């Protein structure tokens, strides 16, 4: 494996002929502040995320990886540039449309505070569907519950679940609506290593077995090694990428970034 720079490799074609990229950023810029105090969190980032692939975004603190994810997921609006989710340009959509897209076409797993404390695990899983008035696919739901081992936990509230269980509920919620992209932001940041490995395993299974597209932000090389591809960011710019990463290659790449 080697670090590639410049031209991005093509995403792989899917069997049923969908567009090759699930989501694409083009010349994204995000500037905070104005005049002398302006800081560019993203400085012209162009990157594609292939359908049915597990991509990790890595970089040191302040590299802009979270900002990139927020812009990709329609949580934040870039100062300049474009985001395409499938055929839909996100950057100029009003809040209500963005909200609908998040609800119906995107799934999220956050580092912490993933679940609403007053809802049961099941209600939390079904939240995005119910917000959109969609009926859950019962078979898919029970598959997810089985795979994630949540069968006896569905009626519990978040405060009665362990951190790992909470995060698995969050994964189930992200997957249950079959979104075009699942964004995961440091999904293992608050977990012990075993629970973390479980959650990452599930994310990878969802890609391999169900063809889900996952984009994950992390700073943990072990977590990044679960991905098919690692995109490196530094100082708001793309700093290379790895295919079929292992913890060692990721660590190497990071060291080179730091150098």
């Amino acid at each position, binding site marked *: 494996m080697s670090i590639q720079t410049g031209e991005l490799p093509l995403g792989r074609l899917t069997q049923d002929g969908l567009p090759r990229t699930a989501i694409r950023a083009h010349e994204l810029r995000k500037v905070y502040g104005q005049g002398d105090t302006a800081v560019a969190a993203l400085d012209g980032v162009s990157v594609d995320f292939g359908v049915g692939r597990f991509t990790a975004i890595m970089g040191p603190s302040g590299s802009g990886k979270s900002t990139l994810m927020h812009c990709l997921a329609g949580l934040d609006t870039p100062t300049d540039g474009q985001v395409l989710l499938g055929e839909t340009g996100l950057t100029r959509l009003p809040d*209500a449309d963005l909200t609908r897209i998040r609800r119906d076409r995107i799934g*999220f797993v*956050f580092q912490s*505070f993933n679940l609403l404390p007053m*809802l049961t695990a099941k209600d939390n899983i079904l939240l995005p569907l119910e*917000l959109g008035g969609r009926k859950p696919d019962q078979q898919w739901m029970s598959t997810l519950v089985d795979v994630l081992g949540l069968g006896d936990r569905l009626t519990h509230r978040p405060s009665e679940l362990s951190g790992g269980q909470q995060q698995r509920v969050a994964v189930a919620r992200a997957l249950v609506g079959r979104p075009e992209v699942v964004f995961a932001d440091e999904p293992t940041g608050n977990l012990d290593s075993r629970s973390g490995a479980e959650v990452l395993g599930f994310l990878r299974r969802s890609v391999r077995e169900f063809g889900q597209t996952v984009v994950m932000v992390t700073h943990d090389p072990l977590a990044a090694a679960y991905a098919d591809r690692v995109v490196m960011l530094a100082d708001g710019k793309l700093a290379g990428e790895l295919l079929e990463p292992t913890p060692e290659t990721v660590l190497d790449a990071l060291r080179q970034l730091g150098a």
Partner: protein
Amino acid sequence: MRRSILSSLRAHLGRLIAACLAIVLGVGFGALAMTAHASASHGVNETIGKANAGVDAAVTADRESILPKQVDAIRKLPQADSVVVDTSAYMQVAWAGKVRPDYLGIAARYDTSRIAGPKAIQGRLPDSTLELALPAKLAEKYQVGLGTKLTISSYDDKRWTVTVVGLLDDSTTVGPSNAVATAQTVKVFEPNGYINSVKVAAKPGVSQDALAAAITPVIGSGLTVYTGEGWIQHEVQGFTNGIDVIGGVFGMFALISLFVACLVIANTFTIVIAQRTREMALLRCVGASRRQVFSSVIAEASIVGLVASTIGVVFGIALSALGLALAREFDWGIPPVQLHLDLASIFLPLLLGTIATILAAVVPARRATRVAPLAALRPEAAPVAASKAGVVRLVFGFLLLAGGGSLLAVCASTNEVLVGVGGGVISFLGVLAIGSLLVPALVRLLGALPARSGGVPARIAVGNAVRNPKRTAATTSALLIGVTLISLTCVGIASVRKTFDATMDEAYPVDLMVKAYQEKMPASAEQQLRDIKGITEVVPVRTVEVKAGEQQLTVTGIDQTKAPAVVHNPDLVGQLKPGVALLDRATMTTLDLKDGADVTLVAGQSKLTLKAYRGNGLESFTVTQTDLRRLSPNAGISGFWLTTDPKADGPEVIDAVEQSIPSVKDMSVEGGLAERSAYTKVFDVLLAVAVGLLGVSVLIALVGVGNTLSLSVLERTRENALLRAMGLTRRQLRGMLAIESLLMALVAAGLGIALGLIYGWTGTAALMGAQTSGAVEYAVPGRLLITIAVVAAVAGLLASVLPARRAAKVAPAGALATE
């Protein structure tokens, strides 16, 4: 420590604004009440003082007239300089455009060189016979100008024509005031006129006490002598008693709203301190003692209380100045009064407001001292307090509820009003104490429907509303107090009124009875009456003069089939049938009859025997038209019995009826309407005043609801951001908060209305049980109660607007931000 208090105040000012608003409203209301009261008292003092300027002694008769020789005795005193006599005649005056004459008091003009008297604002005071000066407002009402000739008649039908020569200044008097004529004229009108009082001005150098002491021995017994100052005080008393009662009621309502404000403040401080747990813990970590933490919270409360109370006082005084100015500008039927400020009405509300704020902060401050220093080190000190309602508090609440409730029930049946009020207050405190159990349960119950049909946002809203039972209970409590009091007032007044109506129907079963004495009613009379707005039924009655033994009687006959339309007492209607006569008490006594006895009437050749029964409120001797025709087949229509629309303005209808049928000169209008409309008006005014005053506390409570919501919104920033990230639209988020607010408002309204019904009914039972001969009637003023619920709901929705806007501004990316 001081720097930390000030900086934390600055940092959290926004969160305390609602609490400040509650204090401002409560204190402002108190200051308004006290200033208005002080101004009114002061105004009365001034007015009466001015009206009695120069009076050094006054003599009044308790019952009868002061005798002329007593007046002469006073005049002979060397100490007396000017002695004036207050005497008046009560005459009938025919106004242009009025069919029948009206009554007018005419006072005798007296020497005003020393003692203040009526002043002419236009023209002059009368100085020869058959001249008259009219109160300006009266002259305006009947469009009488200078030079107008008026016909004055006495009760024994003597007539004079007088000329209006002046208009009197009556700008400071309330109600009807007297016209003025010379003493000789009044003597002509009313030769035996009473002397009501004598006022005396002293010779220079003679003190008021000396003058009064000189008068007392020369007038004999039966009269009261006052010094000038004593007299003014006596007169002022008569007015200010009423003002003091009103002031007391205002003060009570002001205290209620201050209490509600206290609840809001306490709740706000509790929430704010819960949110500042980490800050408090950090203070403790760096070495602040518990006492220092406690006093920092109390100091913060003192500053907030003092500042808000000051604003409240300024606000209240400004409002009363505005109100008084408006009252002077427009004639509201109250005497014009200048703004008068005294120290008490400025400093008492200020002091009470500040103390109330500090007291309200004591419990939250104590809670703040219990924060462990370690809490500062925990990563996320969730402000969601684990709030299980204290068992002790619940048990205590249930005991209060049971005890107060049974006390109330006992008092309702034994008519112990004051103890009953105590029972009511105790049981209500019980309700407040179990609020943390009761309110969330009701919210869940009420929320079941929206939770099922309204989707996730509704379900989350219900969950949010019950998440912190104590907070929800405290928030609704404030609103509950206001709604309960308002419903109680509505239910109580409606019930008392219904009870009154029932007794009125017994005493005055007919609204209006129009009766001609000598003349015949014209054929058009019935139609004329029907055309009057507010008259719904007109039934003619006929009379015939008969003899019963030696007694001359007037018998009135009414069509039996039409009687139910105008007689509101079903018992009387049932009794009235051919062969029966209904007599009033006096006629029963005169004829020496017992209930059910036979009475024989003779009219010319006809003779008829009837059974006589007592029947209150009809004519003295009432029979069916069938029986009347047997006595006199051709008896003409002599009058009408009328039913009026209960919603019509009573005095206006009476006025219109009195002015109708101008061809009949001698006509009387009687019946229950006058009395009924008088007490209806009293009840309406009472209701409006009470609801208006209690409305202030509801307003404060709603500020509290909005406040709790916006503080909760602050706490739930991350949750709301997460929901937004998950795809909750802004509109759904606002709707969610609206539902939460609506649930709290509706639970408070529902519970308050239910309690209001219970308290209103038991209160009426306790109050009226001893007053009325009949049964106490319980009313459900449905429309009013529904209005209360709707207003509470709308207000609840409004209270959610600002917090919802703030919540909707939260960027969804906020959920991802790790603290």
